[in-house]
C-alpha cells in the first residue's frame, strides 16, 4: 500500500516534466501523451517493486525508447505519405506538417512566452542525444550517473553530449 502511494506520487510529479521532454522530441501533444502513457504503464507493470530511487532513470529510459519508436513510425509514415502524394494531383490532399508551432497568444506576457518558445525550439533542434542529456540534467535534475542510466550510455558520454548541447544552445540563443 505504501509502495502504491509512493509510485502514485512519483508518477504524478514526473508527468508534466515527462510530457514536456517527450513533446520536445515528438513536437505533437498527442504523440507526447501516448509516449508518456506507454512509459508509465511499463514502469508500473515491470518495475513497481524496485526501490523508488531507481524509478526516475528507469522511467526516462523507457520513455526514451517510446519516443524513438514513435519517431521511427512517423518517419515511415511520412515517407509513405510523401511517396503517395507524388501520384495525387496538387490541391487534392494536405500533408500534416510536423513541428508547426501554435500561434502566440496576445497577452502581456508575450515577451516571456516568446523567450520560452525560443528556448524550446532551440532545444528541440538539438541532436537527440544532446537534447536528452540537456533535458534530463536540467528539467529532471538528474546527476550524471542517473542520466547515464536513463540514456543507456557511459557517464563520459553524458558529459560530452551535455557540454555540446550547452555550446550549441549558447550559439543559437546567445546569453538569453
Amino acid at each position: 500500500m505504501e509502495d502504491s502511494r509512493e509510485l502514485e506520487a512519483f508518477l504524478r510529479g514526473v508527468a508534466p516534466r515527462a510530457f514536456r521532454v517527450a513533446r520536445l522530441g515528438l513536437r505533437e501533444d498527442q504523440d507526447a501523451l501516448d509516449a508518456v502513457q506507454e512509459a508509465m504503464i511499463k514502469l508500473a507493470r515491470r518495475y513497481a517493486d524496485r526501490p523508488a530511487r531507481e524509478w526516475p532513470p528507469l522511467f526516462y529510459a523507457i520513455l526514451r525508447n517510446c519516443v524513438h519508436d514513435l519517431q521511427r513510425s512517423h518517419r515511415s509514415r511520412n515517407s509513405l505519405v510523401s511517396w503517395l502524394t507524388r501520384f495525387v494531383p496538387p490541391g487534392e490532399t494536405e500533408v500534416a506538417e510536423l513541428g508547426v508551432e501554435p500561434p502566440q497568444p496576445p497577452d502581456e506576457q508575450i515577451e516571456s512566452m516568446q523567450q520560452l518558445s525560443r528556448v524550446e525550439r532551440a532545444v528541440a533542434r538539438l541532436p537527440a542525444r544532446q537534447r536528452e542529456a540537456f533535458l534530463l540534467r536540467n528539467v529532471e535534475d538528474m546527476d550524471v550517473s542517473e542520466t547515464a542510466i536513463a540514456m543507456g550510455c557511459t557517464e563520459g558520454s553524458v558529459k560530452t553530449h551535455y557540454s555540446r548541447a550547452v555550446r550549441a544552445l549558447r550559439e543559437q540563443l546567445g546569453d538569453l
Partner: protein
Amino acid sequence: MSADDDDAADRTFEQRARADLRRGIEQTPPDVRARLDSIVAQALAQPRRPSVIRFALPAAAVVLIAGLFVAQQWRATPAPDASAADDFALLIDGDNLDLVEQMEFYQWLNRQPGILDDAAPPAPAQRS
C-alpha cells in the same frame, strides 16, 4: 574570454534555460494535465508483473547445486586401472576365451613327447 569566464557563462546560461523550461512545465495546459492525471490512474491500475529475478535466482541456485553434486559424484567414481582393463579385454576376445577354456588340454598335449613333432609336416628331403 578565459576558460573560467566561459564556464561561468555556461552556468549562467544553464540556470536561465532551466528556469525557462520549468516555466514551460508550469504552463502545461489544463486539458493536457487532465489527460496526464488519467494516464497516471491507468498506470496505477495495471497488474504488476512478478519480477523475473525473483524466480531466476533460486532456479539458478538449484541448477548450480545440482551441477556441483553431479560433478562430485562423477569424480568420486574410481576409474578402472590399466591391468584390469587388459584382463577384461582378454576375456571378451573370442579366441582367447577358447584358449583359456582348453588350457588343460594344451598343457597335456605339451607334455606328450613326439605328438606335436609327428603332427608337424615332414621336412623336405635334402638333395645329395
